């Protein structure tokens, strides 16, 4: 799995952090998404896909590698 985020689209809702806190974080200053790892372990894949679905800005893209 490879994750990419379209940062200018991010709206700082933090949905990704609520769903997959080991993969996503938010910057303190403006809440923008911070990708902690582009290629998370397999046990995180389900949560990452949920986060991509729930993102209110469609800013998370997940590709299978």
């Amino acid at each position, binding site marked *: 799995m490879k994750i990419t985020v379209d940062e200018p689209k991010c709206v*700082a809702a933090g*949905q990704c952090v609520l769903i997959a806190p080991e993969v996503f974080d938010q910057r303190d200053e*403006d*809440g923008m998404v911070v990708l902690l790892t582009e290629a998370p372990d397999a046990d995180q894949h389900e949560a990452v896909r949920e986060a991509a679905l*729930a993102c209110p*800005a469609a800013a998370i893209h997940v590709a299978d590698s």
Partner: protein
Amino acid sequence: MNRIAVVGAAAGGLATAEALRRRGYQGVLTLVGDEAELPYDRPPLSKQILAGEWEPDRLALRGRADIDALDLDLRLGVGASGLDAAARTLLLADGTSLPYEALVVATGVRARCLPGAEGVGGVHTLRTLTDALALKTGLRMGQRLVIVGAGFLGAEVAAVARRLGADVTLLEAGPVPLAQAVGEETGRILAQVHREHGVRLHTDAKVATVLSADGEVTGVALADGRVLPADVVLVAIGSLPNTEWLADSGLALGDGLVCDQYSAAAPEVYGVGDVACWHNPLFDTAMRVEHRTNAGEQALAVAHNLLNPDARRPFAPVPYFWSDQYGAKIQAYGYLRDHDEARVLRSDLTERQFLVAYRRGDRLTGVLAMGQTPRALRAWRGLIASGATWDTALTDMAVTDPAAV
């Protein structure tokens, strides 16, 4: 289950379709939408699109390849016109009738119009991409824009229009903008922000009529006799759920499609997004939420409930919305309406910071903020989600974030 129809192809409908596939549904999946475009996102319409920062193709919620991978029976540019619930048949505006085993209603809302202003050149509403592009052409340096309705949509457009150099007048029918949605205290703070940015905000301003000459708008006349000259008018006075096509379906309609705590309107019929009025057990109240995040969350919940009829879960989210105005982001968690108290815990507009907590009975039910850290906001959200009492919440937050209380 082998035949699911999702009506409405915006954020909620598309997310439902995606979530159904993600959860292993392999049957026929019809997605119907009355707009011709591939599913696109609406929040940027009043922000980046209006400001000219984004081209419309950036609004696409998913690329063509991702849509194709869902293997949809995709029907765009044709709305639903009726429903025979007993026969489980969906009727489309082009005369097609489609049998279904399960139905998801995600038809959203449309902008309310101002009676008498329809068809007048230069008078706009803002809900679709077409609307946004039409309004954008009128927002130029020095143009006089009058916005009827000082809700979040009107406020966002005011902020963009000021940045583009337009002369902006914002009309609010009540004494304080947004009072019903977020309380008078917060409304007064937001009103001050607009005034500081050169917006003329008129409160208690009831519109009598839109004035025009040769079919083009020239101004807005108020009930008290004042006339506000205008080159462009935006009508932003709320929205109406798109449920007319369900009028003869036997489904319960009120403020939208009436759903239970599982987001179900009837056996194998569910509502998703702006159109759905469901019972949120977390706040023990019926709510219809026009927030972008809710469309996604409800889609995930409905997909689960549809595919797991014996293990359904109540849909009990903490609603969340954001609004971008003058380069700052307003964020809110919870159910802000019907509160007993809205306490301003922090207010420093020069630092672009404020924080308001909402109480209903003895419970913390919401928080609205600008300029607070994500960590602090998530802590507030956690307290709302856990049903924390007001006293507990304020004590907890005083420990976590001493400046907040």
